[in-house]
């Protein structure tokens, strides 16, 4: 099948110092890739690079990131703005900070939707509240009218998930989307993301420390350490029968719930 997104021997540096080295990975439509690895290994950097969001001192210093025939590092800011959100969506690791502090959740959702599609405010709200309910928001109307500071950590995270999903992008980058959620809500988010893939063929990269989430979602897994790919392959294979020493160490450190 055709690749939708392809990292080809990518090196990424901050202020001239490489932090991601020679990573190659590709994503087909409808594929879910789990990105796991050590804290500081370059997971967030890797997905931010595909959206041109590395910030002032970050740069793709080698290799290409191909998306629909375009090499992302070559694109202008204007071209990137067309891709961001609408074609490649992002759920940020720091959900609270990625939301605008002085605008309501509803205002932000309507703004980002109407920037990329013909939609009335009523319709945007209706679709949002539907999704809010699925994400276990009890009082969806209140969330729509709330400012980020009036919501809890996990509520902001869910608002970020909703904003990204409502845009129905071809690729969804989800950076620790469930780290602030209780396990009941987490399960629901996993379900909704899988459903997005099943219904629209959305390709998803999910960065997570939760191996349970990876095994519930991912088709393939990439394991990173110190900016290097340690292991890359079929999720079942990697999680059940890891070959790399670091992957083995990582999996053996997972605390398991004793149920009896």
């Amino acid at each position, binding site marked *: 099948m055709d690749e939708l997104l392809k990292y080809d021997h990518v090196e990424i540096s901050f202020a001239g110092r490489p932090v991601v080295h020679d990573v190659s990975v590709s994503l087909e439509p409808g594929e879910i890739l789990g990105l796991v690895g050590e804290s500081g290994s370059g997971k967030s950097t890797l997905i931010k690079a595909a959206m041109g969001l590395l910030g002032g001192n970050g740069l793709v210093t080698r290799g290409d990131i191909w998306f629909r025939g375009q090499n992302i590092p070559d694109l202008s800011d204007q071209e990137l703005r067309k891709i961001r959100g609408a074609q490649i969506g992002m759920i940020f690791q720091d959900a609270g900070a990625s939301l605008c502090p002085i605008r309501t959740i509803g205002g932000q959702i309507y703004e980002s939707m109407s920037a990329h599609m013909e939609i009335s405010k009523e319709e945007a709200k209706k679709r949002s509240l539907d999704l809010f309910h699925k994400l276990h928001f009890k009082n969806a109307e209140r969330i729509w009218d709330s400012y980020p500071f009036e919501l809890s*950590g996990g509520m902001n995270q869910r608002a970020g998930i909703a904003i990204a999903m409502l845009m129905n992008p071809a690729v969804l980058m989800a950076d620790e989307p469930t*780290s602030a959620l209780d396990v009941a809500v987490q399960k629901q988010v996993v379900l909704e993301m899988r459903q997005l893939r099943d219904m629209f063929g959305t390709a998803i990269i999910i960065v997570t*420390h939760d191996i349970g989430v990876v095994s519930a979602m991912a088709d393939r897994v990439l394991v990173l350490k110190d900016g290097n790919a340690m292991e890359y392959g079929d999720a079942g294979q990697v999680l059940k029968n890891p070959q790399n020493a670091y992957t083995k160490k990582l999996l053996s450190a997972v605390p398991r719930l004793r149920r009896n």
Partner: protein
Amino acid sequence: MEPILDIKDLTKTFRNRGKSDLTVVDHVSFQLYPGEILGVVGESGSGKSTIAKLITRLIDATEGSIFMNGRDITHAKGAQLKDIYQQLQMVFQNPVGSFDPRRTLGDGIGESLRNHGVPKEKCRERVIRLLEQCGLSEEFAGRYPHEVSGGQCQRAAIARALAIEPKILICDEATSALDVTVQKQIVELLLSLQKANGLSYLFICHNLALVQMLCSRVLVLYDGKIVESGTPDEVILSPKSEYTKCLVDAVL
């Protein structure tokens, strides 16, 4: 044994202009004993962070009282607060937002030490030692909050909270941004401080396996109320409330 923290009927109602009143912490009572790790689990939005902010006096309680070492700190201000923060520290749920973006992490971690008159050179040594205990090299002292990864910033926040050797540490999802190997290192650090210094923890955490491993008791919060409490085994192996059952069932 006297509790180090005694929370009685703590209640928080948010009254925002143009909106209806919202009681998000509703007559919550519990005790934290010296050297104990008390877990708090619960629904997203159930009031866990609000309880943490009430105890650390970042927001005012609507009702109820907070006693630390038998002293009523419900309305503590100014000099009394400074006193309290020598014994009570907190690791925030959102670590990046808890650091001043214009100052280095080393600066932030050393701040409480400098405020207490620790000389510059000593302060530097201590910051480096703290970073190292949290698995970060010396180099991170010179970095700004936006120049590090999510988990690195979270570890810097833990280092900062430990700097003045508090007696009580409130951890609000303090390990949620860490991979399991680094998480293990941090958990070992917390346990060693519990042993060596008798540090007590209020440990807010979504990860039930971690709570089971670490905590001596656990509170389950739902909609601003404590719906269940007990040892992790009591709560996780034979949950009584509907919500706790649903939580345990949902673990992937």
